[in-house]
């Protein structure tokens, strides 16, 4: 009865819709948080990686004999790598694989008939799953970075603008992963795209080598690619804030989100025409 009342009211309808997706995010949040052993093991690998980066960059910087490269010190490099790794690994399990399985198994046919948007359903799930992972990764990663290289100077504006870039970075990652998953409508095995996508992130996403340390010509190219606009932009801004850099990254991010968002929407609509439901 109360639901009917809400639906009769226009603003209530928007609120009701919001609640629906909030609930989806909540379920995924609790689901992810339940598997504590998995979360701990995932965090342990983050610690080992930070340890590796610390030793690698301490040795590399000491060989070159400089304390700063392109404005970044070893401490900044380690913290920025810790963040990009934490942001990126928080999105597991890979969305592209989940969608791929839904397309192949046919569960997508049942999902699209339910009273929610398929794309928004998965987006809420994606965000809900990532949040507990992100907090645990960042907590353990920060502790490790603190112990290994010491603290880093943080400003409120760096954090605020970094978080904005991160949120839009997740949207960008979501759309590209969705596209890879949806390609299962036409291609038998999408895993090759998933590997190439994750390697694109590894090379141009600042996961091993910050883009600021790239040779100049490559740096310019890398900053225009979508890979750097997911998690590197946010991490780079948090460790070393530059207002002009925020505007540059944010504009590039929005262009890519618009592009991949449209492609995903087009592919989804084209793909569901292939879906036929037989029986119940």
């Amino acid at each position, binding site marked *: 009865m109360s639901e009917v009342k809400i639906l009769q009211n226009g603003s209530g309808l928007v609120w009701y819709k919001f609640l629906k997706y909030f609930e989806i995010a909540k379920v995924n949040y609790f689901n992810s948080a339940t598997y504590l052993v998995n979360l701990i093991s995932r965090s*342990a*690998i983050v610690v080992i990686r930070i340890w*590796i980066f610390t030793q690698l960059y301490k040795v590399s910087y000491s060989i070159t004999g400089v304390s700063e490269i392109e404005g970044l010190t070893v401490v900044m490099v380690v913290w920025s790598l810790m963040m990009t790794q934490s942001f990126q690994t928080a999105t597991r399990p890979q969305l592209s694989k989940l969608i791929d399985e839904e397309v192949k198994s046919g569960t997508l046919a049942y999902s699209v008939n339910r009273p929610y948007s398929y794309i928004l359903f998965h987006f809420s799930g994606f965000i809900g799953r990532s949040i507990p992972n992100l907090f645990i990764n960042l907590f353990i990663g920060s502790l490790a970075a603190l112990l290994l290289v010491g603290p880093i100077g943080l400003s409120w504006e760096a954090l605020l603008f970094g978080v904005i870039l991160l949120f839009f970075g997740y949207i960008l990652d979501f759309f590209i992963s969705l596209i890879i998953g949806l390609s299962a409508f036409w291609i038998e095995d999408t*895993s090759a795209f998933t590997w190439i996508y994750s390697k*694109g992130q*590894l090379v141009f996403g600042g996961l091993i080598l910050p883009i600021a340390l790239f040779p100049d010509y490559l740096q310019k190219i890398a900053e225009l690619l979508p890979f750097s606009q997911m998690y590197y932009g946010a991490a780079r801004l948090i460790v070393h804030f530059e207002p002009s850099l925020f505007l540059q990254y944010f504009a590039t991010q929005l262009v890519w989100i618009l592009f991949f968002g449209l492609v995903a929407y087009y592919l989804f609509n084209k793909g569901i025409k292939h879906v036929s439901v037989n029986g119940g």
Partner: protein
Amino acid sequence: MFLSTVGKYISLTWEMTKSSILSAMEYRVSFIVQVFGMLVNDIALVGIWLIFFQKFPSINGWQFQDTAMLFALTTVNFAIVMIFARGAFELSKTIARGELDYYLSFPKNVLWHALVSKTDISAIGDLLFGLIIFFFSGNISLEKIGLFAVIGILTALIFLNFIIITQSITFYVGNFEEAAEQMFHALLGFTLYPQTAFYGALKIVMLTIIPAFFIATLPVQLIQKFNPQFFLILVGFWILTTIIAAIIFKHGLRRYESGNLINVKM
């Protein structure tokens, strides 16, 4: 007697893998996409180190050529495991779900059967990549090819033992699937970096819990400059991990509980 049994198992492994590859090749497009997809994937991985070494040309004497050799060896040993024993990665899942029954009903060794039950087709791309990189790394002699082959197989077996050990922990603790996968990624992660950068406690981790030293550091040194004593250490480590893997699996199997699932494999 022992040797003839080993010979039979090797020939059976070869036959099972061959039939898996041949059946995968029936789906030609998928096969080509997987193999070449992996090849591109590996090339991208080398790309990042090309960029890195432009900024830092030498890390304690370790140069891009060393990284190329490291990648050649680790992609080959990884590929050997994935092609012939992909089932190792599914052990934890199989144990946790009580699906080991299928292998228990056969006259052959349970662990061996579970290991060879799957083949990763994309690993053929890794194998091709590793061999190409090795042949382009310069200074190739017949002796070096032989050494590369022997060390490639030996490190693949150590790699396999590590996977069996971590996946079999599921027998004892229940849910260990993702933790085992993460340990595997940690091991693989170590093999990406210039090996001369590590020191102190991290080196101890590489020598024990995550034995990257025996899969990457030491073998690359051996291929570049052979040393019989170091080679014996590598063989010794292989024997040690084989014994540990066999004990953990065999002892764990006694604790195994069936899921009472009836599976028909076609």
